[in-house]
């Protein structure tokens, strides 16, 4: 089963999303800030990363940049999650290297579509 790294500082969101994803059969590992997320991404080599953008220690934009800069993590697709489609959030996320983008609150079916699409793309070539 695909391994998803969820980087989220908000405990409730983290709990809720991880549980719902696990219920859908994904293996979910958790990081609570950007720095930790980057570290886990390197150590655990997940299939996909779901990352909140407003993270402590190292924010999501910067974390995404680092992930995409490092050769071992570059191939991992990242879906950025932001509170709301704020001004230029989407562009900023794509620019930082994220592969897709979704807004919170999570519309689970939509998010699952995006996850599946990215995983399929990753395994396809």
């Amino acid at each position, binding site marked *: 089963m695909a391994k998803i790294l969820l980087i989220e500082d*908000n405990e*409730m*969101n983290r709990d*809720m*999303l991880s*549980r*719902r994803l696990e*219920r859908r059969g994904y293996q979910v590992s958790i990081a609570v800030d950007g720095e930790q997320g980057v570290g886990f991404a390197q150590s655990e080599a997940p299939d996909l990363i779901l990352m909140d953008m*407003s993270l402590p220690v190292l924010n999501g934009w910067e974390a995404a940049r680092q992930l995409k800069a490092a050769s071992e993590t570059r191939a991992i697709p990242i879906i950025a999650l932001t*509170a*709301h*489609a*704020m*001004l*230029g959030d*989407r*562009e900023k996320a794509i620019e930082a290297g994220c592969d897709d983008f979704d807004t*919170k*609150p*999570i519309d*689970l079916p939509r998010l699952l579509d995006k996850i599946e699409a990215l995983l399929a793309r990753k395994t396809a070539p």
Partner: protein
Amino acid sequence: MRQWLPLLFARVPATVHTKLLAAFLAMVVLLIFLGAVGLRELRESSRRTEDVVNLQKKITAYRQLQHDTTAQLYSVASALLVPNEQTLEATLRQLKSFTTYVDSLQFIADDQAALAQQIRKDYEQFIQVVVQVVELIRGGKIAQGQELHLTQASTQAERLAQSMNQLVIKAEIDMALRLEEKKEAFATSRWIVIGFAVGSIGLAMVLGYAISWSLIGPVKQMNTRLRQIASGDFSQRLAVPNRDELGALADQFNTMAEQLQDSYANLEQKVEERTKELSETLEQQTAISEIMRRVGSSPTDVQPVFDAIVKSAARLCDGLFGQLYRFDGEIISLIAHYNLSPEGLEALQRTFPARASRVTWVGRAILDRTVIHVPDVTSDPEHQFASERARALGYRCVLAVPMLREGIPIGAIRISRGEPKPFSASQIELVKTFADQAVIAIENLRLFQELQAQTQELTRTVEEMKALGEVSQAVSSTLDLETVLTSIVSHAVQLSGTDAGAIYEYDETTEQFHLRASHRIEEELVKGLRDNPIHFGTGTVGRAAATRAPVQVTDLLQEPEYSGSVVRLILRRLGYRSLLAIPFLREDRVMGGLSVYRREAGSFSSEVVNLLQTFATQSVLAIQNARLFREIADKSRQLEGASRHKSEFLANMSHELRTPLNAIIGYSEMLEEEAGDLGQEAFVPDLQKIHGAGKHLLSLINNILDLSKIEAGKMDLYLENFEIVPMIQEVVATVKPLIEKNANTIQVNCADGLGAMRADLTKVRQTLFNLLSNACKFTQRGIIALRVARESVDDGHWINFRISDAGIGMSPEQASKLFQAFTQADTSTTRKYGGTGLGLAISQNFCHMMGGEITVQSALGQGSTFTVRLPAEVVEPKVGQLPPLEEPTPIALQSSEGAPTVLVIDDDPTVRDLMHRFLSKEGLQMIAATSGEEGIRLARELHPAVITLDVLMPGMDGWAVLTALKADPVLSNIPVIMLTITDEKQMGYALGAADYLTKPIEWERLAAVLQRYECPRPPCPVLIVEDDASLRELLRRRLQKEQWTVIEAENGRSGLERMAQRQPELILLDLMMPEMDGFQFLEEVRKHEAWRSIPVIVITAKTLTAEDRQRLNGSVEKILQKGAYSREELIREVRGLVAAFIGTRQMARVEVSDGEDPADRG
């Protein structure tokens, strides 16, 4: 011969005719003579020939006779020799017959009578001898007879033969002579004939030559003379010897030449006279024009003009000397003179200036206001004094002409002559002309001086105004206080004519004046002023501030009081002598001061003080403005901060609100799933409620955030290409639960080949979702239709999303409010249907951002159709600028009640939009036309209840449309409101006319219009304001016939006066009038509460010229520029007009028909 012969002929005293006749006759005579001579010669020749022939015959006869005689003699001799009787007898007979010979000879030889006589005699002797012989013989004396015969008869016979021979010879000689003679005579006659012939020819030639030359010569001479005459030489005469017609002609010619010479000489004299006259006139004209030129060229300096006048007048009138005097109503003064001797001038200068008196000629001319002409002063006993002086100065004749300005004497010209020769009328006229010119010059000078004074005054005022204008502009255009104050002080210094100036600002806390701006002040003084701030009450500025009045120091050197102050010392050192300080006061508060410095001592004029006070006022304004600006800038900085805080707050709030909402929505959704999985179905509905409420709350928060972003202009477009059909499917799938909730069904109809579009996908989706969810909310068990189609128009491809529901529908008023944010007129809707009331506003904003729009068609109870119209290719809008409102095509609000329709003709989309909102609020149906032509077409098609018409439109303007409407009998009764709204200034103007009549007035129409304003209690007063008197008269008669009491006014102003006297029930008003036109009049009328309700029927021209149009529109523009009405006022007025036209009853019905207010459909 060449000269004398023609001369001879010419001298012959006979006519040419006679001469020619004589010559002809001479020729004839000569020819006759020639003929006669010829004839005579011929006759002579013939005679000679005859003679010769006769001679020939004679010779022949002689020869015969000789022959016969000889033969006779021989035979006689022989017979005698043989004496026989017979022979003797025969001889005797022979002798006898011989006698006949001799007789015939005698007859032939008539010219040789002697010879013939001789012969006869010889013959007779012979016969006698013979007879004697015979006798002897017969007598037998034969021997004797023979002897005799031998001696005598033979001799005799020989002699006879000799004579006969002689005769023949003689005849032959004669014939030879005659032949010779004849030959000679022929030669002679030939020469005679030739001579005569040659002579005739010569004579003919001579005569011809002589006569023709006697004729040609004079003719040639005449010709030459004529040429000479033609070339102007009249002195030459013709010397023709002819005594014939030519002679007479020559005499005539000479007479004529003489006459010509005489008349020419006369003419020359006349021409000379005329030329002299002309040159005199020319000289006069030249003098006059020269003077005029001087008058024109030097309006300031009239002395040269006067000098020239006197000189010209004296010279052109053969005057000895001339003077020009001026008269000021009392005193006569000598102004200019010409050719006066020093003594004469001295004498005059002793006399003048003098009080006007009749003692002098000039005085008389001035006092009598008439020309004084004294041909000889010595013969004027009345003026002893004058004549004495005349003698002294050496003049005899005087002419004095007064200079009159509008009949008032202002001087005189005097010309004096040395000899007592009167001035001619033309000379007097000339001097009069000169007098007039002098008047003109004086008048010019006066006018020029007045003008100059006025110009100077004006220039000064203009300069001041200009400076003030510049200062005002500086004050209003820049808030940089230093720039403004520098501008003020520099203008103040320049205009006041001072050398330097400074402006100070007063600091109330320190009670000090600080230098803010200066002009032409030396660095040293600037430093001095900065280092030594002026305290309130000290220094000139301080004292001016303390006394609240200008203070001036007229001489710094004379002012010991402040002599010790540093600034004073610097001022003195820099050479300043006087200064003036003006305080800046605002409501008695000191704001600062203005000082000007001058390098010369003396007080400042009140004008300068006043001027500087004006500048002080401006400075106060500038300082005030600057202070205000400083405050505003502070405030706006604060506001900016507050706004930033608000945005941050909103962003934070949304984040903060959303985080717990996330949990609520997420967990409830999760629990819902888990409850299902765990078989706890009973919890599901409750969990769904929590989930739903959470989602609603979230959408509210999102909407608020969206709107705040839109308002802050911070909403961005994220443009991407996407396929339309999948997007629609996605939206429909999302909205599905809502559709099913009210048991509705959805019909999606996507046209073929929709393809892709470029837009902000999220926003398109959000918009469609919003509209669809609205449709679901307001429809129960109905069909919701979504139709998507691509539309190609001139400006590109558009995608139209049409969402129709079978819901409760809306009133026009509700529809008009639909897209306004936060307009929840009826909270019950929200309670009943939910929603924030923001959805449509946000959606509309999204569409506008993408260059599209949402329109709605709805009627109460009949459902609504929302159309989202978006460009297929949305372009990135320029930052900070929303795309303009798409021009709506004629908006037709379907009204269930068939509400009255108003046709709005206006080229401005904003105005149409405004009118649409306003009219739908009034419950009226509105049709819009974007041009005059379209307006007329729609009016014919739809026959609206009222038409509003923009006055100022490009192409066919309001007046043209109005005329067309009023000219159409079907449309002429539709009330028209002339209306112009300028969007920039939010100002408008409505020509509040109850109806319009076009010139020329159709009386039937007038009657129809009047019928509507039937006089309630006749006689009612009606006011006609019309400048055309004849039309006024016509209208008056018509109206009087209809029982109206007519009040007339010829323009707006008098119209107002009449109205003040008596208030009319109706006004007929022409728009184009002098003094106060119809627009101004209406404006004034509307200012009076009592007059506002009086119906006004406007009269306009049917055929408007471009000029008329310009004037009408110009009036409208003028009113607009004045700012006639704010939009609200205007709408109020239009409401009144529309109500008046449509009728209050109808309006009321429409208002009542408003049902539930479903406007809030977020």
